């Protein structure tokens, strides 16, 4: 293969700057979308376990719709289709006046999609808790909201830390799809370096390494979370 390797390109401006802004955008996009996913996913997950038929059906429909459509299609729907379906004023605001519309559209697409995955984990986490715990709360006079707040959610979250770790990592990786609607995140910046310099191998190697660094950091942080929330005396709980 006749290829002129030039790793130095990665450390030269403006390309180093491209990579840095790419990493920052990827992290911002993933973190904000994760907050959306975590909050909304928790609400939906709780709704699926409520005795109310209406609440659990709404959440079930949400989950089925969002996980049934590919994430890439969601990006296109939110970016190209939804603004046209909204009232004219809103659509115009989205397309013209919203600062950085690509970024915020990506946050919405990624956040709402990941929420359905978080919702399923939260639901499973709650349903795995023996019914006696709820009964103990009821017998103590706790309201349903208090039972969720003090008993079910703390137990469910602890149980699902490992699967949430994987969802949290996935949101960083999935954020790369945002390049399709023009967000200059890490993958898009690597492509940009490639098109300016024709040093595609170096650019994508850099992106690959940076993604790995991000996901490994996530793993380390979540290990800490897991260790801190571990319940004393229950080391061998479920499958462990």
């Amino acid at each position, binding site marked *: 293969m006749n290829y002129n390797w030039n790793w130095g390109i990665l450390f030269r401006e403006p390309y180093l700057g491209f990579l840095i802004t790419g990493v920052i955008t990827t992290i911002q996009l993933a973190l904000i979308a994760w907050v959306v996913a975590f909050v909304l996913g928790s609400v939906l997950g709780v709704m699926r376990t409520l005795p109310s038929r209406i609440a659990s059906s709404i959440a079930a429909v949400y989950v089925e719709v969002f996980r049934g459509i590919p994430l890439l299609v969601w990006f296109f729907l939110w970016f190209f289709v939804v603004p046209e379906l909204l009232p004219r004023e809103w659509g115009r605001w989205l397309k013209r006046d919203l600062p950085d519309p690509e970024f915020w559209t990506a946050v919405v697409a990624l956040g709402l999609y990941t929420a359905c995955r978080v919702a399923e984990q939260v639901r499973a986490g709650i349903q795995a808790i023996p019914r006696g715990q709820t009964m103990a709360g009821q*017998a103590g*006079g706790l309201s349903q909201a208090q039972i969720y707040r003090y008993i079910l959610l*703390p137990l469910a979250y602890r149980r699902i830390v490992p699967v949430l770790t994987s969802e949290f990592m996935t949101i960083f990786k999935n954020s790369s799809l945002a390049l399709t609607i023009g967000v200059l995140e890490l993958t898009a910046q690597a492509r940009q370096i490639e098109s300016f310099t024709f040093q595609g191998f170096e650019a994508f190697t850099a992106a690959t390494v940076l993604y790995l660094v991000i996901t490994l950091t996530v793993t380390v942080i979540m290990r800490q979370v897991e260790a801190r929330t571990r319940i004393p*005396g229950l080391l061998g709980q479920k499958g462990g």
Partner: protein
Amino acid sequence: MIEMHEVDKWYGTHNVLKRCTTHVAKGEVVVVCGPSGSGKSTLIKTVNGLEPFQGGRITVDGQAVTTSGRDLTRLRARIGMVFQSFELYPHMTVLDNVCLAQTVVLKRPRSEAEAKTEALLRRVGMIDHARKHPGQLSGGQQQRVAIARALAMDPIAMLFDEPTSALDPEMINEVLDVMTELALEGMTMMVVTHEMGFARRVAHRVVFMDDGQIVEDRSKDAFFDHPETDRAQLFLSKILHH
């Protein structure tokens, strides 16, 4: 204190409680016994509405037990309950287990709740374990904490659903001792148990159930000395002679 009148409960077509009528007077200790599957656990869980029932009427301290709603929640806070499998909250320390309902339901200030908790833990012999989590305790210790948790709400009555059935034999007495002490202090108690020694010592009345029905409901002495029905005689001969 507790009045049950013709309580009927169905699981689909299966009639699990058949017109059960009994009562527990203030300060009285009533032991509910019977073969497994006879409905005694279900019966005691209807008293604070943990199990819904379809027919009949239950009142506690004059207040009707409904199927849901704020009134039921408020009533439950006044009735203590102890479960077969303890059901302590595993993610909380012993101290927090006993404080939780005091602070969030009764709105006691934390310091007051802790003082109350410490007094109760001392009473059940668990004060040295206040900072531990339930998973670090034996079954008997967990059950004593569960009793303290129920007592912390200053209940007007206590319900015990087979409190010693999940315990190793050597731990049964530490729990029964706490319950006996409670009974002698005049607590109103309804106890589902197979511990006939406990029933003989502290019960005032014994309710014997079989197949969803209350078959006998008599004073302790009458029940143990002259059980009326064949089923009760058979049950007693099996449970006492081994």
